[in-house]
């Protein structure tokens, strides 16, 4: 393919045909400011911040949607260009609430940052403000249309990456608002609470529901025994809240920080990830042996669960009945752990630190109280934990590493890889292989199910039986797999994660989260796995003890009561 030659700011640049001027400039080290642009997801030229001068063009061009052409001469830094960008930004700001000091995205807001970068020093225009009030109806997310700059990033993610289409631009002109159909509250819409919208929002127009106040109150209550669990994906991202590189494994510092905050016990969701493998693996073997509904599909991801409930209710029997590791943990904290520690379960307060906004919804699901108590009292996102640590003045990166508490903090490498797409599958295969064949697995690492490719498939030979497995992450990819299942393709076991990249790319993770950052966090997850002395769930001594002392056997009566659940067919509209 021949390259296209162009000149940007006097520099000779070569670019592949189809490249935008913005990308070509970036490759040549020339930075053009952007606002609505989101690589490969939202390239629509709506904000007009990335304007450049193209010789021969009648007007300034939005560089994100202008393809390079042979001999093109582009100037990105002329007085006219700078003035036009500034004017467009001032107009965008003209109906933006000037609440930066009390805004949840303050210091992490692209609009705020751009205003500083472009040197906006006064507000020359005051426009009509949005007539819409904030929407607090969702258990996971808050919509604040007043702060919306109508960039459409959230809409693109919701429609294209997730294919949920819970929100779109409605009405027009000054009344335009990104909202569900009929301007219904988000809590009534077929929204899966994945929070990918919040992850890409440049401002605070969509953000997680802040529940840090409930956790501060529990920590301050002397009657409450407050235990915390940390999801696998949080240890490779929490450092980013304090300026660390994405993917740095900060498990020991995370534990230390949570102890400093005042949690009575610091436990690990990785423990119940291992437990999930025991339960779900047994469920798979049982379905294979007894002719149950196949393929079996994983049930760890609450966004995925709500998606199938809304859009594919016919396929619900394929779901594993296992609760997610978060919920299993809560159920055990208030039974097994309560008994062992001699604490009245009604005084135990369970907090989860999750990379996820849908976990808030899951924690609130009515049926999640098999022990007679709420499994999980509050689910916080990685971002909310970061805020609490800052508020407490904890200097995260300088903390000395500490260990999780026993027994619910003991885990294996198989538990930690739940944090990345393909991890549940890999953990399940490690255990299923050894349980079915009775032999030691020669190579623990199943590279065919790793990585950021949307749909991954492989086959594994278990004692002469071929197990066809598939992995999808991101709901558009989930749809593709479900269509294949409906079309009769033979799979035995499928892992589906709602968010692109799996939990490391979850809607509760630090902002920004993009493809490169996802890849680095995933690498961190596999580093953490390799560093573990035990890497197979069935070898977890605390899980073995749990079965011996309390549960009996996988899929037994107690497991059924505490660790398994049922699903609900929901309407699409």
């Amino acid at each position, binding site marked *: 393919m021949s390259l296209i030659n162009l000149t940007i700011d006097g520099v000779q640049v070569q670019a592949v045909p189809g490249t935008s001027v913005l990308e070509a400039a970036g490759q040549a080290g020339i930075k053009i400011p952007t606002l609505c642009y989101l690589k490969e997801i939202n390239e629509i030229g709506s904000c007009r911040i990335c304007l450049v001068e193209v010789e021969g063009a009648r007007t300034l061009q939005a560089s994100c949607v202008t393809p390079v052409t042979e001999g093109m001469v582009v100037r990105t830094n002329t007085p006219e260009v700078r003035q036009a960008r500034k004017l467009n930004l001032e107009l965008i700001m003209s109906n933006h609430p000037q609440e930066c000091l009390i805004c949840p995205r303050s210091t992490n807001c692209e609009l705020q940052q751009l205003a500083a970068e472009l040197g906006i020093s006064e507000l020359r225009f005051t426009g009509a403000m949005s007539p819409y009030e904030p929407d607090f109806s969702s258990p996971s997310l808050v919509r604040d249309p007043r702060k919306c700059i109508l960039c459409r990033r959230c809409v693109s993610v919701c*429609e294209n990456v997730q294919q949920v*289409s*819970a*929100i*779109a*631009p*409605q*009405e*027009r002109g000054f009344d335009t608002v990104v909202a*569900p*159909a*009929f301007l219904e509250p988000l809590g009534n819409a077929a929204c899966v609470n994945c929070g990918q919208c919040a992850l890409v929002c440049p401002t605070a127009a969509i953000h997680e529901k802040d529940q840090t106040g409930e956790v501060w109150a529990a920590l301050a209550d002397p009657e409450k025994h407050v235990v915390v669990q940390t999801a696998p994906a949080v240890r490779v991202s929490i450092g980013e809240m304090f300026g660390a590189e994405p993917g740095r494994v900060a498990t020991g510092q995370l534990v230390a920080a949570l102890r400093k905050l005042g949690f009575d016990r610091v436990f690990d969701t990785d423990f119940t990830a291992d437990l999930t493998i025991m339960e779900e693996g047994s469920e798979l073997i049982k379905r294979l042996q007894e002719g149950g509904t196949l393929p079996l599909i994983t049930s760890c991801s609450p966004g995925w669960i709500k998606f199938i409930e809304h859009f594919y*209710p*016919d396929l619900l029997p394929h779901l594993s009945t296992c609760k997610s590791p978060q919920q299993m943990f809560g159920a055990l904290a208030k039974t097994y752990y309560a008994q062992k520690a001699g604490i009245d379960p009604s005084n135990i307060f369970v907090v989860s630190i999750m990379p996820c906004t849908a976990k808030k919804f899951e924690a609130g699901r009515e049926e999640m109280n098999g022990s007679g108590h709420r499994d999980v009292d509050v689910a916080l996102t990685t971002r909310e934990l970061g805020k609490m640590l800052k508020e407490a003045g904890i200097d995260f990166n300088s903390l000395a590493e500490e260990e999780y508490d026993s027994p619910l903090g003991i885990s294996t490498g198989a538990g930690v890889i739940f944090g990345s797409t393909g991890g549940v599958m890999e953990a399940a295969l490690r255990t299923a292989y050894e349980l079915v064949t009775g032999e030691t697995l020669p190579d623990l690492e199943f590279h065919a199910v790793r990585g950021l490719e949307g749909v991954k498939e492989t086959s594994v030979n278990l004692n002469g039986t071929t197990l066809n497995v598939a992995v999808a992450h991101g709901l558009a990819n989930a749809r593709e797999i479900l269509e294949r299942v409906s079309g009769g393709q033979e799979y035995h076991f499928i892992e589906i994660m709602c968010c692109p990249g799996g939990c490391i790319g979850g809607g509760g993770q630090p902002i920004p989260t993009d493809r490169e950052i996802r890849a680095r966090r995933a690498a961190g997850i596999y580093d953490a796995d390799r560093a573990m002395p035990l890497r197979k769930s069935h070898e977890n001594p605390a899980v073995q003890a749990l079965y011996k002392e309390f549960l009996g056997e996988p899929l037994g009566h107690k497991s059924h009561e505490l660790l398994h659940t049922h699903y609900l*067919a929901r*309407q*699409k*509209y």
Partner: protein
Amino acid sequence: MSNGCACHTQLEPEQLNEVGRIMEPYRGQPGSLIQVLHKAQNAVGYLPREVQVMVSEGLNVPLTRVYGVVSFYSFFTTKPKGKHKICVCAGTACYVRGANQLLNQLEKDYHIGPGDTSDDGQFSLDVVRCVGACGLGPVMTVDDDVYGRVHTDKLSSILEKYAKE
């Protein structure tokens, strides 16, 4: 595989069947959205929720996008039209001769704004731009009848006739 709920149904089954017939040639064609909405509104008179749901399913367009289009274009309406259609001209000539006072009076006496239908279902109101009778401004039409020099004091006597029909 519609699992849309029936709690919003205001239409007769025959009307819904008609929408189905209109949509048939366009099934699975998201690009035909505006055309189908246009025809559906002509057939039903307006675009209630269940019609939008049918169109969403039939054309394979998300409901959020269907509603986005319906709420964007002032031609589309989600409310049933009244028995009689009032149009107030707000073209330049009528505007300067008091079209606005007329609209205010309609709001005050009949509680309808542009795009609305009165609570009793008798009248719906639209604003139009010039009916070609500028010399008679302000101009108002009711169904096919045109009224010129309509000042607020004449309003009730004109509409009274239609209210009885």
